[in-house]
């Protein structure tokens, strides 16, 4: 064994053999075997519910497999708790980051492993450890910055440093780039390559196939809990991976664009609005049009659409919906007037996770399904049933709680909720974040179909590809202002990136 087991010197391979896991009779993982090698990036891909997170959790000791065995460095490994896994050098960086916002960078990194005597923390010793770590990772975060003030990408760096401080030899990253902007993703990829080069085995769970192909040495595809293939990256193509994940050939990732007729009426007219984080922004959307809003995270995209939804005070300008000005700062009034909004984070801002599909889907429509606020259960059920079928939610029963559903189905419930109100304008902030490939296509199809019915649609997205694939017109934001409005042939990756970075050096 490695006596001087400092960061990165993983002593050998981690092997999981014939691992299975059931949840209440439903198989989540069936007889899956995987080998992780030090210094290699091993990607796990698959649709939501394919079992990649379950496998990640088994490797991390969060859940115990029903059958199968784990060996690490040639010795059998039994992980009863995440603590066992950490002790063995296996660390997870979860999709939802687990930093404490009120503590500083250094305090977060050494949380639970403070250098201390009788609980009195040795500040100078910790500072020294921090400097060593920072040098190793190549980051320059100030140790005394409060983590709550950091961007998502910087928080991720904190997590990476914490993993390194625990002398991790296997790091599991679950959707690390899902909430990052393009430039931040570049930084993350650098980190992952650096970690692998220093001998850490990386498990990369990701929906972004391009990212997987760029970074990985080996790609394992899962479908419905079974292993479909494990192959070196040289043998993989994006097309082949999608086919493996879906179990069928994938048609185009995006539906064909159907442009709105040029004489279509204006449904949304945002005139020079200023709001917190937004300066003098205008936007016109015609019936049947899909307008994309691009920009880096923090460019004011979300603030802009929330201001349009009148969820923020306007210091200037006005929002006119189909001839009616939305004067009141009130989401409920906006919904009544005919704007629907799907927020960027379905867990925090969208769903009641503990409530049923039915409760969640009907929430915005209840005034129409009731009389003197008495809910007509029959009409409610009929309306929910119809809409849930239209958006294609797959669930055992409408009484199932939102928490039990996959990300794709959860997102579809939000679409059901908003579409039930038959809005004139639909604003979606990150409509496919954390959604599997199959559901993504279903959501795109839905958006295109709704546009053809005459709805005006605004899509905010961090995925350039999504903007390019869907939008008829693209507005690019930076520092709370609109830096470009692109149409027709001008809509391309280069133009969007230039506008998103504007005065930044050529990206």
């Amino acid at each position, binding site marked *: 064994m490695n006596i001087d087991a400092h960061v990165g010197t993983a002593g050998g391979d981690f092997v999981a053999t014939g691992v299975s896991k059931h949840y209440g009779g439903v198989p989540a993982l069936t007889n899956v075997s995987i080998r992780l090698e030090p210094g290699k990036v091993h990607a796990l891909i698959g649709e939501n519910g394919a079992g990649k997170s379950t496998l990640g959790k088994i490797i991390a000791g969060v859940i115990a497999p029903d059958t199968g065995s784990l060996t690490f460095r040639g010795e059998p490994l039994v992980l009863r708790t995440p603590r066992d896994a950490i002790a063995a050098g296996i660390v997870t960086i979860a999709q939802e980051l687990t930093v404490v916002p009120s503590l500083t960078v250094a305090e977060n990194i050494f949380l639970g492993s403070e250098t201390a005597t009788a609980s009195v923390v040795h500040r100078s010793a910790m500072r020294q450890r921090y400097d060593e770590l920072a040098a190793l990772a190549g980051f320059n975060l100030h140790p005394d910055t409060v983590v709550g003030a950091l961007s998502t990408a910087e928080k991720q760096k904190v997590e990476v440093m914490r993993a390194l401080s625990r002398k991790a030899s296997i790091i599991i990253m679950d959707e690390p780039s899902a909430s990052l902007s393009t430039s931040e993703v570049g930084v993350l990829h650098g980190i992952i390559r650096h970690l692998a080069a220093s001998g850490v085995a990386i498990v990369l769970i990701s929906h972004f196939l391009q990212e997987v192909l760029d970074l990985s040495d080996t790609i394992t595809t899962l479908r419905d809990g079974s292993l479909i293939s494990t192959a070196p990256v040289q043998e993989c193509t994006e097309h082949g991976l999608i086919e493996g994940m879906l179990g069928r050939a994938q048609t185009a990732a995006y539906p064909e664009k159907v442009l709105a007729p040029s004489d279509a009426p204006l449904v949304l007219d945002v005139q020079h609005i200023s709001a917190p984080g937004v300066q003098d922004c205008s936007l016109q959307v015609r019936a049947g049009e899909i307008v994309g809003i691009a920009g880096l995270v923090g460019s004011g995209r979300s603030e802009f659409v929330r201001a349009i939804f009148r969820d923020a005070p306007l210091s200037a300008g006005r929002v006119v919906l189909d001839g009616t000005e939305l004067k009141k700062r*009130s989401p409920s009034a906006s*919904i009544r007037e005919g704007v629907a*909004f799907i927020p960027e984070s379905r867990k925090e801002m969208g769903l*009641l996770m*503990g*409530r*049923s599909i039915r409760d969640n889907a009907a929430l915005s429509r209840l005034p129409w399904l009731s009389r003197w606020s008495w809910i007509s259960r029959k009409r409610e*059920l009929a309306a929910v049933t119809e809409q849930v079928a239209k958006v294609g939610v797959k669930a055992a029963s*409408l009484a*199932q709680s939102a928490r039990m559903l996959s990300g794709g189905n959860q997102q579809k419930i939000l679409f059901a909720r908003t579409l039930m109100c038959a809005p004139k304008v639909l604003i979606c902030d990150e409509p496919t974040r954390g959604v599997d490939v199959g559901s993504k296509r279903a959501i795109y199809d839905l958006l295109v179909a709704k546009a053809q019915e005459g709805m005006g649609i605004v899509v905010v997205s961090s995925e350039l590809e999504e903007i390019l694939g869907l939008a008829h017109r693209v507005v690019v934001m930076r520092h709370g202002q609109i830096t470009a409005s692109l149409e027709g042939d001008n809509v391309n990756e280069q133009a969007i990136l230039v506008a998103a970075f504007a005065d930044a050096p050529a990206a």
Partner: protein
Amino acid sequence: MTTTATNDGAPVLEARSGIRFPAFLRSWRTTGILIPFVVLFVALCLKSAPFHSVNNIINIFNQQASTLCIAGAFALVLVAGGIDLSVGATYGLASVVGGEMAMHHSAGLAIVAAMLAAIVVGLLNGLIITVVKISPLITTLAMSFVVSGIALRCTQGNLIALPPQGAFYLLSNMHFLRLPSAVWITFGFVTVLALLLNRTTIGRYMVAAGGNMEAARLAGVRVNGIKLLTYVLSGAAAGLGGCLDLSRLLSAQASSGGNALTFTVLAAVVVGGTSIAGGEGSVWRSMIGVLFIALIGNGFILLGINSLYQQIVLGAILLLAVGLDSWFRYRQN
């Protein structure tokens, strides 16, 4: 492939009986209070002959009338993600105001004044919480001190006693089908609250506001209005409770109710499986919670056990109830 569970209306049935996935959890919430309650009830029936006399049962209901009303509204406050620690003090204020007014004015005016005082307290609670955005715990705790002080000021610290033959006496003590009017009024009030929670948009909004305030707001729920309403209802329930008990006992003092009542109600609602984290709860289970605690008290008296142990048992049961709730929540994540 899109099996969306639309067939044969099975989901309706499930939703109606309150059983939603995960079923074990839902049924646990119901059975968790119902089984101990039934066991205790049967045990008391077997052990004590006086217990299962109709009079004793009616008496329990009559004594618990005010607590039942307050617990019903308290459940709504918790469901909507708040808490109201001022109900005991508000109850005291209402009975004192009612008593003072009944001595010099008509019974009707006294009731209106008492209810109004209590509703104003609820309204203030709600406004401070939703507009000034002070935490409900602190707001209502502070309010309970203020309200107790005002009640004491009203009575100058004296006990108010009403004549037994006054009109006010009739509020709680008319009889219909052997049951006193206090029980009927309670039954009506609590039924309205339960229907409000289960069958109306307002109830659904309470659940949404307590379950995920931001999501509810963005879905078009006027969260502040809903929260405000729960505190107003809570105040009104405390006022109604105060009037019922004033009529029943014909006496009032500023210190009646108080924190003991508040915490009994809180304990009853929590024992009934309503989560203090919000977004989940039930009026009728809170009623079982109140009666459960009342049965413990009644049983200890009838069986002649030192009431010292009653407190210990109650505390243990409360911990058990909250512990189980936390455990299930933990298991869920």
